[in-house]
């Protein structure tokens, strides 16, 4: 029992954190945040110098690529965060259950003796 509430509980928390880390990696959340405004797939006009018109064209071309990139990345980040949020909720339920499980036998027996059951009708 001492293991259940010490190393066992810590192990569960570690497992939950590890799964969160894997999800964060799977959806590249950290990478996407750090490159949120980078041009998407480096799609933008090439070259350097030239006339002012060329310069402006390249600037807007790159800007457009950055905007598209940030939109696509934001969607992915949001999707990843939703999944991670669900994971946190699920993990918390597991942790709370972990705390209760050792008492489940006694609780079950007491409720059985009391004879309470949910009524469906």
């Amino acid at each position: 029992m001492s293991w259940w509430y010490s190393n066992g509980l810590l192990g569960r928390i570690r497992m939950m954190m590890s799964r969160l880390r894997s999800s964060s990696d799977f959806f590249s959340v950290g990478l996407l945040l750090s490159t949120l405004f980078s041009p998407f797939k480096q799609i933008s006009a090439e070259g350097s110098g030239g006339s002012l018109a060329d310069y402006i064209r390249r600037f807007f071309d790159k800007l457009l690529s950055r905007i598209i990139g940030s939109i696509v990345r934001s969607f992915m980040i949001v999707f990843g965060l939703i999944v991670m949020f669900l994971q946190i909720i699920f993990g918390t339920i597991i942790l709370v259950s972990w705390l209760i499980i050792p008492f489940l036998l006694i609780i079950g027996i007491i409720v059985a003796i009391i004879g309470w059951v949910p009524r469906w009708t």
Partner: protein
Amino acid sequence: MDLTVKYNSARSEKARISVLLSKNWLFVLSISVVVLLVVGFNLIVLEMAIGWALIGLASVPAMIVEWYNGELCHLPISKKNKSIDNILSAEVLGHLPHNPTPKELATIVSQLNGGFFFAVRFGIGLVFLQELASNNSTDMPAVWSEAIRLQSLTNSKNISAVILVVALVNCNPTSQNLISHLQLDLEDLINGIKWFNHLSSLIEEYQKPKLTGGLARDWSFGWTPMLNHFGKNVSQQVNSVSLLNLPAHDQAIERIIGIFSKNGRQNAVLVGPSGVGKTRIVQSFAAKLVNGSSDVPHNLKYRQVFILDAGSLIATAPEKGGLERLIPQILNEAYRAKNIIICLDNAHLFFEEGIGSVDISNIILPVLESGGLRMILAVDEQRYLQICARKPEIANALNQIVVAPASRDETIAIMQDRLVEVECQNSVVYMYQALVEAYRLGDRYIFDLAMPGKALKLMESAAHYGDNGLITAKSVQQTIEKTLDIKVSVATDEDDRKKLLNMEDLIHKRMINQSRAVSVVSNALRRARAGVRSQNRPIGTFLFLGPTGVGKTELAKSLAEVYFGGENKIVRLDMNEYASSQDVARLLADGADNANSLTARVMKQPFCVVLLDEIEKAHPNVLSTLLQLLDEGILRDIKNREVSFRDAIIITTSNAGADTIREYIDRGYDIEQFEDQFVDGLISSNQFRPEFLNRFDEIVMFRPLKKDELIQVVDLMIADVNKTMSLQKISINVSWDAKKYLVEAGYDPRLGARPMRRMVQRAVENTVARQMLSGTVVPGSIIEITLEQVQQMVSSKTDADQIVKNS
């Protein structure tokens, strides 16, 4: 530390429970959780309160399963570390009885993973351990303290079954003798512990979740359609195939990371001989970059390595100028993608014009100098020197990383890593002795590669020579023996042993007398096949001295036929063709230019008799060149490649001083009486230099044959004729007086047995030919050749003299 196992300690109890909870029990417990939960919920749905009790009851097996997975199956060592049971692995501790004896411990560890490992990999199984372990429990403290020593020596996290196997072996006073039967020593067993620990850590590493950057890893980097077409994405390959860490390459990888993570020339050239592992370094480097858990600098993380395929590039743009357009496009694409590291494997293909290669140094040089695109080049030492000599500006632009051949320990460690793949692909298991043998024989017989390539090549080839899927040292020996047609193993086969023990008799079937020469050569072979000769010299080196026609060359031929498997196993050089100093080059010529050079022929056929006839006629420079061959069994060819003569017998013959030998024999001396004096005479007359003569294992003098010995020679020649005629079912019988006449007519003390061949041809073969053509002989008949017939064929002394003269 207390060396008594506390049977009732908490850790011991837990270990026993973990042993009790076998996989079957855990399965039953898991099923019971599910069944209790399902039944419980159903009962509640049916408004029966007993369902709550069943759900509560399900928590008990559920907790046991969780406890097992969370603690019991990886029972950590106790931090107190005060008694031996605190640092024993759970699987061992859980099986230990009260007050165990070494024999009981041997039985226990033999049935655990570590015990199986030593049984399969080293041949140290249950029977072996039980034989050397005592039945006295008072011997246990010695075993425990040896185990503690080994744990500390190998940095093991606990005392596991592998450590206890080695501790049990070490505690036996005769252990060294016992394991030497398995071709092992104590150091090998310690390597075994390290190997097992390494495999365990690999499995643990494999089971950990991998961070790869995820779905959107490459969204900030450009597309690379051309690179995908003309290159090989190493990073993708190492993603799909788990690449193992090779400790020997860590240093080179660290240097590449160091170069790429700082400002400056963003390139590295890996320089080392073929087989040293340059491509593997690039693969390991690529694997490290895409591993999210690795400690590479941020600016290198998730960068991808592409190896450019020279063949594909040349095939696409064969015309002049085509590549000059294509390569910049590819490099530009890599530059714009911002996450590409280009690798030019066999980089010389991009710096020289030739078949399958093209010189694009004018395109690559600016890229190397600007440092805008990271590049790795891999090239062997010789080619790198050539590139440097031709284009020094390229050498100046490159950061050189020398990749040295791996040491023995590193090579064996690399082989152990590679085994995981090789064993899986070929469904075989390698013993440790096989790896050691692969290193030894690879080092000796494979010349085109460096370590660890040599050993790996041999190890992988041995997969096809296993005995029921088990690759032993013998399997590796067989691989070399069958691929190179040589004998490297100690003679254990009954036929082989008989042949070796009766070598003299077998040679004498075609050699008359010269017993001493036959004996020294036979002894050399016996030493070689019994494994007692020096491995760093030829099997034997002999100088045969004596007049012509006494059997010097014949002995070499006999040896080739009897032991080496045929007269074609003789590499014969007439040294009178090497009489000028320029002939040294011809002797050592590259096989591609001159297939008949000594080095080329021995490279193709290392297990042979090398016969250097009339050595006294060779130029002194040629003799000097041969000194290293005689001393170390090594010659370097014109391209500086090492050619091994260590599986050959070197026989040199000389007629030098033949008249002196004859003179001494005629005066009634035995050879032994004037041998030393004679050799001194050869030195003082400047026919041979003392350092040359000293290199030989034996200098053997052949004495002229007497007339009665020549009759035996005639017998051998007639036996040869009979062998030829046996195809037509005809045999020949020559009368005694006819043979004697042949000897009398053909005898010349200066020429020995040489004229006898012509004499027999003239007198016997011609007679038989005539009789056969006249139709007087039918299959199954015996042709009797009489003195008269012989006299008729060799009608006069003048005839005989003419034959002798022509000889």
